[in-house]
């Protein structure tokens, strides 16, 4: 046996290019279905874990999937907003408490999530350095944001304008980073968290500018009366909130009418969930409220159907590769006829020759399996990054 392994090894290493091509072809065929299964299972687990940890999500009537995906993964889909007042209505039911989520803007490719401090308690998030935001204009960033953008507390981030061509639009807001969250292997690692009021400032619903009572320049103050002051475009608007100008920031209108993309609602118990959903379904309370687990489950059913199609494709590809593999072996044996006959002439048995050939195949398959195992391991190692980057 030892000699057969040695001869097989010598043959494979001498014909290393052919052996490598065969080995990697087989490795990929072994790895693809297993790797895909691993990827889908892990995605399912992560998606379900995120969904399971979020009892209820309320939002404007529309696609429940868009609502859940936006709230759980901060995908920047433009979904219809509901008003902040709705959070108060839900709170008044006494069935639990609401956490507002406003996720429509981004900074340097990462979503800006406006919320309340309850969000961090609810998700079990804490800072690895710095602290959580305290006032408007401050932000706390996820660990991946900090790593990829090399940001630390004391640095700042500027919100990305919605459109480069909207010159009349809102100025970007420069936000002070006050903390970096611990790594949680969730979409929270890739988000920038601010107070929900900060997102309203980014939207332009709140702003800060020179104190008009102190300004006498007629090119700035166009009209002044006892009840109001009208300023021109020359008025200096602050694009960063700091202790000196924070008092100049203000909101116009009723904050309860300001928009949020969704509300995470944490009911006190199962009964509260049932009662609240009953009220919403009966139309007593407007808008929609969904159970994320059910929505994600539904989504996963679709993925599962795609997986089944993939599995069928892999079976066919595997079969085709096996046939090609068999053909390559048959052709190789034909080319090696002279060599094998020499072995027979010198004194080898047919069984021994078959053992040597079998050992070559075994070494190929074992090496392929090892390579696919390594690929599986590597996939497992980077699976979270992969899932976050490409799937959710």
């Amino acid at each position: 046996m030892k000699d057969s392994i040695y001869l097989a090894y010598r043959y494979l290493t001498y014909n290393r290019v052919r052996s490598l091509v065969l080995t990697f072809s087989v490795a990929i065929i072994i790895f693809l279905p297993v790797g895909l299964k691993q990827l889908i299972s892990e995605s399912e687990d992560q998606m379900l874990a995120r969904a399971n940890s979020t009892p209820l999500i309320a939002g404007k009537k529309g696609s429940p999937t868009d609502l859940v995906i936006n709230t759980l993964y901060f995908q920047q889909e433009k979904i219809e907003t509901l008003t902040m007042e709705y959070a108060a209505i839900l709170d008044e039911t006494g069935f639990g408490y609401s956490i507002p989520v406003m996720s429509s803007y981004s900074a340097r490719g990462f979503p800006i999530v406006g919320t309340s401090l309850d969000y961090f308690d609810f998700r079990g998030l804490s800072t690895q350095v710095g602290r959580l935001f305290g006032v408007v204009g401050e932000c706390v960033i996820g660990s991946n944001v900090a790593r990829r953008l090399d940001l630390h507390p004391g640095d700042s981030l500027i919100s990305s304008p919605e459109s480069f061509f909207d010159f009349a639009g809102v100025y970007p807001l420069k936000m002070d980073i006050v903390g970096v969250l611990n790594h949680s292997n969730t979409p929270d690692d890739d988000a920038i968290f601010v107070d929900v009021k900060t997102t309203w400032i980014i939207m332009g619903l709140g702003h800060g500018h020179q104190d008009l009572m102190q300004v006498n320049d007629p090119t700035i103050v166009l009209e002044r009366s006892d009840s109001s002051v009208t300023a021109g475009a020359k008025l200096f608007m602050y694009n960063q909130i700091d202790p000196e100008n924070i008092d100049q920031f203000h909101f116009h209108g009723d904050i309860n009418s300001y928009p949020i993309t969704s509300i995470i609602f944490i009911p006190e118990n199962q009964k509260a969930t049932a009662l609240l959903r009953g009220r919403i379904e009966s139309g007593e309370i407007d808008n929609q409220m969904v159970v994320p687990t059910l929505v994600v489950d539904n989504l996963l059913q679709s993925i599962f159907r795609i997986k089944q199609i993939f599995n069928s494709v892999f079976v066919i590809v595997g079969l085709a590769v096996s046939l090609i593999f068999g053909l390559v072996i048959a052709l190789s044996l034909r080319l090696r006829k002279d060599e094998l006959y020499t072995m027979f002439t010198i004194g080898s048995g047919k069984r021994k020759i078959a053992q040597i050939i079998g050992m070559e195949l075994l070494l190929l398959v074992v090496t392929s399996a090892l390579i696919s195992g390594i690929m599986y391991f590597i996939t497992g190692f980077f699976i979270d990054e992969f899932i976050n980057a490409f799937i959710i």
Partner: protein
Amino acid sequence: MIQVTNLKFQYPRSTFELNIPELQIGDGEKVAVIGPSGSGKTTLLNILSGIIVVETGQVEFNGHQINTMSDRELRNLRIRQIGFVFQDFKLLEYLNVYDNILLPYRINSSMAGVSGRGSKAKELCKHLGVGDKLSKYPKHLSHGEKQRIAISRALINDPPLVLADEPTGNLDPENKMKILEILFKMSDANNSTLITVTHDHELLDGFDRIIDFADFQKSTAI
């Protein structure tokens, strides 16, 4: 000693028939087999080594009836008692010189556990003037060197019988003489029987006996 009696052999669907009424070759004898192409010279070597098993006649080698032996016995006979030298060397391209010489030990389990084979291979190579080629692969060797390696492989077990099928067929005149000298020298040193099929009539001088297959075609006993 080799004793062939009343041997008749015909390949399927062939009109050629090898007919040897009687042939004796003694221990340590150096025999050249000559004859026209297709006269059965290589067939005789295959019969003597048990690769072709004849049904008519008797083939005896050192007291063994070759044509009644089992496959396993024939394999063990070939690996232990017969050394083969081919015209086209038949070295395995993926093995270096050292591994090619030791091939007989690796392809038959009855040879496992034989000690001193490595030093024997080195000694043979050194003796044949290719001692510095042990780590080389066949593609890096000249024809003369390849045949010396093939002879080393044939002699690694000190076989009492060496069958050489046109061992000089692919060599230049200078190397032809050298290779034959090596075969004669090794045969003398081991007292092994050497049966060489050849077309080179100018090389026949050193042989003890010449068997012309043209005679067998006329069914002449030698």
